[in-house]
């Protein structure tokens, strides 16, 4: 077997090791490069910023352990953003794990809140917790919250929560923020809340899902979207609250460059091998 063939059939474990090094290195030795704001992030931020003070907003927390490092910093900053505008927040999640991570986001955000901003559980925000049933569950929740939830995430009966007094369906909200992470659940919100109730919505998804939702953005069903860690980093930047997302955005540089290098290398070798094969 020639060197060329060996390189073309490179043992996959060598590639894995290279990738580990490329991604771990920038974390241990951070390097910050300049960046510009993407249009979708700006649109989403402007939409959130335009929500009238004092209104009530519905937030789906769909981040998991895997997606929290990307979306979490953005969600935390958004909670701070909203509470500073005196916007009331109603959270819910369509997964059990994501419901727990939503609590983490709320706690982290409250810790970062400037002094003097009201953030009382039950008055300024409430977490309705896990709503099972995926899209059917979302539909049921949007039609009649009390039909699926009798208590919030922490076990407080819904009738004892002041914020929930006048709220029982999707049309009671001024907007929806759908932090879908990688759930692929943004269409649930579009189909079960935006289409039937006409409530405007924006959201967050992982970078890979952005193109799937661009049709919804073009048709006006979604007001921009926060895409992955870079979207979060941009929200942090727009709020002037730099955090974890900005650092990670830089580490993707190295992984991306390695990937591009490998693809180019694979093709160059492939063409050389094909030419040699053709000469034989």
């Amino acid at each position, binding site marked *: 077997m020639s060197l060329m063939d060996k390189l073309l059939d490179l043992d996959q474990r060598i590639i894995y090791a290279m990738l580990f090094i490329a991604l771990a290195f920038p974390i241990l030795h951070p390097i910050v490069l300049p960046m510009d704001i993407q249009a979708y992030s700006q649109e989403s931020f402007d939409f959130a910023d335009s929500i009238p003070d004092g209104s009530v907003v519905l937030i789906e927390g769909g981040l998991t352990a895997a997606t929290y490092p990307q979306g979490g910093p953005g969600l935390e900053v958004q909670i701070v953003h909203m509470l500073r505008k005196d916007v009331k927040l109603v959270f819910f999640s369509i997964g059990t794990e994501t419901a727990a991570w939503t609590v983490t986001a709320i706690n982290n955000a409250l810790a970062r809140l400037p002094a003097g901003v009201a953030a009382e559980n039950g008055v300024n925000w409430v977490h309705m917790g896990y709503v099972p049933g995926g899209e059917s569950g979302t539909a049921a929740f949007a039609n009649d919250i009390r039909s699926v939830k009798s208590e919030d995430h922490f076990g407080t009966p819904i009738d004892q929560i002041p914020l929930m007094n006048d709220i029982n369906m999707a049309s009671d909200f001024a907007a929806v923020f759908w932090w879908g992470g*990688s759930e692929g659940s943004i269409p649930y919100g579009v189909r079960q809340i935006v289409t039937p109730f006409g409530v405007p919505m924006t959201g967050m998804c992982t970078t890979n899902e952005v193109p799937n939702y661009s049709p919804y953005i073009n048709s006006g069903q979604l007001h921009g979207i926060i895409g992955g860690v870079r979207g979060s980093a941009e929200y942090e930047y727009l709020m002037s609250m730099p955090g974890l997302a900005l650092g990670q955005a830089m580490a993707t540089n190295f992984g991306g460059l390695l990937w591009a290098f490998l693809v180019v290398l694979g093709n160059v070798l492939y063409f050389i091998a094909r030419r040699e094969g053709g000469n034989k």
Partner: protein
Amino acid sequence: MAIIVEGRIFGLIALLVITGSIVYYMQKAYSGKIPKLRRLQAVDVIDEILGRCVEMGRPAYYLMDTVSMDTPSILAPTVAAFQILAYTARRAAHLGSKFFVPVTQGLAYTIASEVVDEAYKAENKQDELKLEETVMYLPDGADRMYIINHMWSDEMAGAFFLGSWYHKAVIFTENAARVGAMMLGGTDTTHNIPFLVAICDYSLIGEELYALGAYLSEDPTVSASLAGQDIGKYIAALLIILGSILITIGMDIKGLLSM
């Protein structure tokens, strides 16, 4: 009170026209007029993959990834995957190929085990079937390690990736490719179809996944329904082209469509 909910009139018309034409073609097939369909390569690939597994004496995996029975957008591809499973399991029983169907959701698990059980019964090979080893429930998430580990230790030779595929698409297909399996992949999820198309030997895109179940059916009325679906595509093309021409000359029909 309006008879039809506002904003959904055209939706209802579209639904009635499309389902109507599907039923029409099925009726026509019932009286013997069967539309001529383009050959779908995947139909032959199933036998090819299973045959290869028999030859090498190694198992074939039938993977469906996310099989939620309560989320409509996942349920549809899941039902389609079950239809193909019914055929594939039967061919596996017929050819004598080892077969493995891990399922990550309880309800879907009960269905899959019944489908496979019936397939083996149909071929009179119940005694060759160890149902609890062939169809296995694995908690969603934990199936990733189980399947990767077993792909290597079983040295599986064939794999089907059909259903609603999410991030596991690239994990399983790349491992299967490295193990040396022959693969058929197909899904309707837009974000993971690229991996199935790029990595698998044969792939089904979007609607083809739904069509394959109909192709495999021996009931001619079922495959005839595909001709009805084609009417929908003609309608879509017509509406888009006509609408765009009209809007260019100043007539907006968008309001009509969202009536």
